């Protein structure tokens, strides 16, 4: 049978976002705050990012994860690992499985902080054979750095965004030569110093405007087929391929709850207070927008804690909301619902093309609400932001708000 329990707040996912939310809530004394995570160790993705660059001090991922855990536990949040949330029994009640048995946990507020993952080869529809030696960065990091497994001898890395360069580091540590970084974009999307270091010091060629169109090899990968934008094709011999980036939120619980999802982010649609369209259900972190740096999601967690605390004390939940929609080449915006009492924070956007200081035009029902020139170029797979000082002009009974390039 299922053990039934009640808590004040249940946070699902003990990554930086969930832990920061829990820490903020427990510190404000809202009652019993419980965080569950299906992994044996709390900390989320940073657990297996052995490289530095996390938090303000540039710690390694595991150090950062430890800090997040300590902060949550230190404020009195209850942290339980090895506990998977597997289903919903009611709008604020979930079913869990752990080695200690089955539980049914009801909360006054549920916070989904289930994170994001990279799309694997199959989801990217890369045809060919199904050999061994095919990774995502997440799997590569765990295999090489946590489990010390043998990876291979020569790799192709698909993608040239920040996470792709961390894959290079992992491969280097594992003693794997890198044949090339391949990106369909005309340029890499990392910090220039990072890319320069890979190219000059580590001699990793960057192939731009190119796509991996086939995996070759029986048993073990023997190479990949490439196609360049101009139609040329090539074969690169390798026994390992790492598919990096192309993040997708882990939205299973959000979807199973029947929450409204945003077609751009594919995560639950939320307003500036991290409220979904399900009363009492909040969502925070990369499940909203895959994938932001850990610091950014931890900051969100702190803000979400404040929003949850407010809800627990006043019980208010918005009844009306306006959707935010983007036009190509913009891919998504988050948050993506506007509610009347929304805090006017900043919005994060993604583009699918390089744009030199784009002008954003924000309209509703044909009325221009805001026009702003970005201060920096917009780069695919990297966040750019727009302030929320225009949200007061939105008619909450009006149609969708559109964000396009002017």
């Amino acid at each position, binding site marked *: 049978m299922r053990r039934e329990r009640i808590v004040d707040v249940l946070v699902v996912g003990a990554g930086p976002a969930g832990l920061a939310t829990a820490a903020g809530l427990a510190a404000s004394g809202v009652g019993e705050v419980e965080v569950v995570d299906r992994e044996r160790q709390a900390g989320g993705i940073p657990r297996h990012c052995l490289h530095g660059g996390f938090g303000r001090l540039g710690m390694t991922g595991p150090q950062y994860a430890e800090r997040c855990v300590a902060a949550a536990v230190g404020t009195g949040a209850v942290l339980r690992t090895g506990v998977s949330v597997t289903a919903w029994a009611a709008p604020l009640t979930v079913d869990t499985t*752990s*080695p200690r048995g089955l539980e049914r946990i009801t909360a006054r507020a549920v916070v989904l902080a289930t994170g994001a993952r990279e799309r694997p080869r199959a*989801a990217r*529809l890369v*045809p060919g054979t199904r050999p061994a030696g095919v990774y995502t960065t997440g*799997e590569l990091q765990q295999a090489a750095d946590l489990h010390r497994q043998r990876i291979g001898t020569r790799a192709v890395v698909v993608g040239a965004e920040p996470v792709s360069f961390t894959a290079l580091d992992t491969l280097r540590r594992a003693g794997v030569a890198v044949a090339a970084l391949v990106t369909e974009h005309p340029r890499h999307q990392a910090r220039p110093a990072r890319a320069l270091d890979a190219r000059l010091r580590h001699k990793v060629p960057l192939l731009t405007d190119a796509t991996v169109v086939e995996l070759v090899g029986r048993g073990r990968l023997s190479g990949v087929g490439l196609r360049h934008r101009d139609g040329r094709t090539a074969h690169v011999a390798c026994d390992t391929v790492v598919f990096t980036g192309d993040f997708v939120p882990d939205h299973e619980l959000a979807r199973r709850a029947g929450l409204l999802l945003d077609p751009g982010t594919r995560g639950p649609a939320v307003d500036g207070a991290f409220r979904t369209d399900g009363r009492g259900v909040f969502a925070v972190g990369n499940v909203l927008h895959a994938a932001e740096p850990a610091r950014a999601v931890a900051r969100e967690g702190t803000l979400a804690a404040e929003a949850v605390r407010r809800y627990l004390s006043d019980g208010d939940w918005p009844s009306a909301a306006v959707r935010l929609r983007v036009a190509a080449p913009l891919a998504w915006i988050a948050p993506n619902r506007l509610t009347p009492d929304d805090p006017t924070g900043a919005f994060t956007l993604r583009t699918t093309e390089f744009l030199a200081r784009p002008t954003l035009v924000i309209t509703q029902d044909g009325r221009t609400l805001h026009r702003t020139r970005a201060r920096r170029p917009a780069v695919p797979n990297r966040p750019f932001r727009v302030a929320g000082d225009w949200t007061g002009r939105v008619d909450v009974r009006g149609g969708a708000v559109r964000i396009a390039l002017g």
Partner: protein
Amino acid sequence: MAVTRRGVPPDVAYDVTVIGAGVVGTAVARELARHVGLRVALVEAADDVGEGTSKANTAILHTGFDAVPGSLESRLVREGQRLLTAYAAESGIPVEPVGALLVAWDGEQLAALPGLLEKAERNGYPAARLLGPAEVRAREPHLGPGALGALDVPGESVICPWTTTLAYATQAVRSGVDLLLNCRVEAVSQAGESHLLSTSRGPLRTRYLVNAAGLHADTVDRLLGHDAFTVTPRRGQLIVYDKLARDLVRHILLPVPTALGKGVLVAPTVYGNVLLGPTAEELDDKTATGTTAEGIAALREKGHRILPELHDEEITAVYAGLRAATDQDDYRISAHKEQRYVTVGGIRSTGLTASLAIAAHVTELLAGTGLDLPEPHDPEPVRMPNIGEAFPRPYQRADLIAADPAYGEIVCHCERVTRGEIRDALAAAVPPGSPDGLRRRTRARGGRCQGFYCGAEVRELYERGAEMGTG
């Protein structure tokens, strides 16, 4: 219990040797094992059972309603369906009797339905009936626009092909069959009353021989001097959509067959996914199990027309299987009395369904060639681990977890596979020969993240399990 992956074959004279441990070969071995006292070997070139066509099909337990009436295939599919349905219930092989709708999208297809209804009746399947457009839509609310009608075939089911092959193999091995993996038969010669098989692991002697080598049944047949048929691989590429798409479809949605072939279906899987495929491509390379950009694109286009909302769903896997087609629209099963040899060739696109009936048929043919069959016994039933979603999985069972907490420890999150299940698979009578084999037994790393979360951990468990000397 003997499953070996290396070393020379035992120096004994087997009564019967079955070449090929696909769903057909394992079924034959299991059937032979019922005759206690026979020494049976099952030899397989790959490092696991079911590594050939049997691992990559559409997983439908057919009624045979659309077979060629009067053919051997028609009879064996019909009998096989009945046998496997009962066997699955006994063994815990996941089966879901979802039923099929053959949906007509144009006038020509609609006009073909009454003929198919009549064909079904001639195949001894009386339960089919015609549905009008409104009824079709009521039954399948997410169907794309334009469905004009359908033939309802309530007896069609979806099944787990991996557990099926594994159940046969497990039962065979437990009943004393020697399963020799990594053991390719390369030549066959005659030594008195015996066949002498040259295998990649050394010589093996056997009095009777069954050729269930799937795509290579013609090659093995030629080793015995027969040139009766040639197997032409017909590739089928398939797409598996995410479990979150499962609510979009209730039945197996079959196309109305046309002159151009059987066409593309959309079906639920017993694992809770949605399957789209297969293509039909005539090839000459029996190893061409890769997928192609054109194949995938064509499938998606068709699938999105049948079920438009599939378009927004994530894809979990893409794979291809090769049907063993010959130049005849029927199985090519024949006995060669003087050679104490039975060929089981051309088991095209229905072999999973027909497997148990093929096994019974082949055993009869063996008896006809002179094999002395001891009285059959019902073997000790097997109870296979459940990897289907329609039945409680270990992570949902408080009783199991209370008795053994390893069933509460989820390792593969997308498919909710527990450490206990992985441990059991590694210690089973027929342990996996690779992480992929472990996936087919447990679903570990077969889900939407394809290993992003659990890949390294599953590999670790596999390697540790394999080290413990199971194979």
